[in-house]
């Protein structure tokens, strides 16, 4: 393996007394301080929760939602367990049953996500072969007053709307 020789910095007298670097840093701080003091409207900091974030895009990993099929507006999930298999927090609980309406063979009877255990990694969305689970809800704040209210069931996940252009599952 080849070795890359990196030149070390910080050896000179000016660099060793640090004053040059300290004043350089202070210059940047003071520049922002004076700019924000004279015009407060451009400060990126918001007064949460009175003000709400304006930069949530459809790529933001928010609370999960289950999508519908475009053809008949029924649940797109076929309970293949790919999300539950990929989940590192093991927070997805699925119970599958046979689907009787002729649209497909299999569907989830129970589909629970425990949001207290979820780490919002998005692996479930990556793993889904049917585009049935997405995190494009834009919901960044989940509030509840007991543990059970953080377990989102199938009906709750289906009722959440997405903020991206595609409302329905894109699976063929």
């Amino acid at each position, binding site marked *: 393996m080849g070795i890359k020789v990196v030149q070390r910095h910080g050896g000179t007298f000016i660099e060793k007394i640090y004053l040059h670097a300290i004043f350089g840093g202070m210059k940047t701080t003071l520049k922002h301080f004076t700019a924000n003091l004279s015009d407060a409207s451009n400060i990126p900091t918001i007064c949460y929760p009175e003000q709400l974030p304006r930069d949530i895009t459809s790529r933001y990993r928010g609370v999960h939602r289950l999508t519908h099929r475009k053809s008949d507006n029924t649940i797109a999930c076929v309970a293949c367990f790919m999300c539950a*298999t990929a989940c590192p927090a093991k927070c997805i609980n699925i119970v599958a049953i*046979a689907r009787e309406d002729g649209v497909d063979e*299999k569907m989830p009877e129970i589909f629970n996500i425990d949001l207290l255990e979820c780490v919002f990694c998005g692996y479930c969305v990556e793993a889904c072969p049917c585009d049935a689970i997405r995190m494009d809800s834009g919901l960044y704040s989940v509030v509840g007053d007991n543990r059970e209210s953080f377990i989102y069931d199938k009906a709750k996940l289906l009722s959440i709307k997405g903020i991206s252009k595609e409302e329905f599952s894109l699976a063929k």
Partner: protein
Amino acid sequence: MKILVDNTPIECQEGELLIDVLINNGVEIPHFCYQQDLGMDGNCRMCMVEIKGQKRPQIACDTFVCENLEVSTKSEKINEVKRSILELELLNHPVDCPICDQAGECKLQDYYMDYGLYESHLCTPKTKKGKHIDLGSNVMLDQERCVLCMRCVRFTSNITKTGELGVIGRGDKAKIAVAPNHPLNNSYAMNVVELCPVGALTSKDFRFQQRVWFLDSAKSICHGCSRGCNIFIDYNETKYTDEKVYRFRARRNKEINLSFLCDFGRLSYKELNEKFTSSTWHVETFKEYLKIEKKVALASPSLSLQQLQAIKEFCEKNSIALYSLPYVDESFGDDWLKINDRSANFAGVKELLISTCQNDFENSLKDANLIINFDHNLLKSHMPENKQLLHFSTSKCDYGTVYAIANFAHENGTLINCDGIRQEYYATKYRCETPRLVELLEELK
């Protein structure tokens, strides 16, 4: 005799099939139609190997080994052949793995990852065939997923000789089917589900219950009759569910059951999941019971040798008359695997010299004040009058005091089958909530 496989010498017998030699020595050889207990058919062409001196690749399931045979299973050329064959097998496959129960143990998935990895050349629509057809006897058929390996057809025509399944149509219209109004109907029908290398035949009983990659397997022995068929217990315990047994699968044993099981035995896993109420175990309370004069004990002939030995020692020490009666069901047996003697270890009972005389047992039952039942079914639903009845039981009892003990899925043990073959079985890896019988008897010493 020695043959050379991928430049490694392998010891084998004259006249063996090449594919058997390869499988037995752990050489990877893809195959759909060959099954060690159904024999060769040679229709899937997946087991192609290169043989030195032969012009074209040969199928390993129709080649007998001979002296100085030189075989290559891994060359670039042979992988190209396998890739082409696999593409033909998969041409009209619906690729509905998300809803297919076979996913995870499917040969098409495995071989595609090992030898396939091609882009589909199909530009016309895929041929449509029947899906989720109920064939009867808990078997579901999906004709689109089928690779026509004929294992199921050969099983019903050669092994059970009932011949319900056949192939109709030709070319890409060929499909497995049963004749109208003649559903799959024999007591070994569910073996076709296990024989099917793809998801064409799936079990209605296991359908959508669990994905197979979440399951663990324990090597065990079926307790349905004294044949002692070798099985795998497939079970799991998840964050959201208690430990549950999902299915039994046949474990190959050339001397006993080959790769097959009867449907009764296959579905007997349900007993292991049953929950029932029982009393709390207190050693002191039990010792009070033992002070009663005139005691008789009845042990189940399906308990393991270790359990029976512990019971025998316990009974000798406390001067209890011990009996064991066989479970005989004249309507159960047939001319193959099923046997009228429904006790898993009756030969073991005889070996330990435990009395099996029905008359003696009934006489001592009349005199006895206390009856201790070690999991025998006879006393679970029948209450002798004016007697104290204590059960050590793995299932629900209608009368008496019940102490729950671990069932055979949670025990290691030895059984002797009807042909005198001694076999071990092993417990699942999860902790059992109910205590083991041997441990309880140990506490009483």
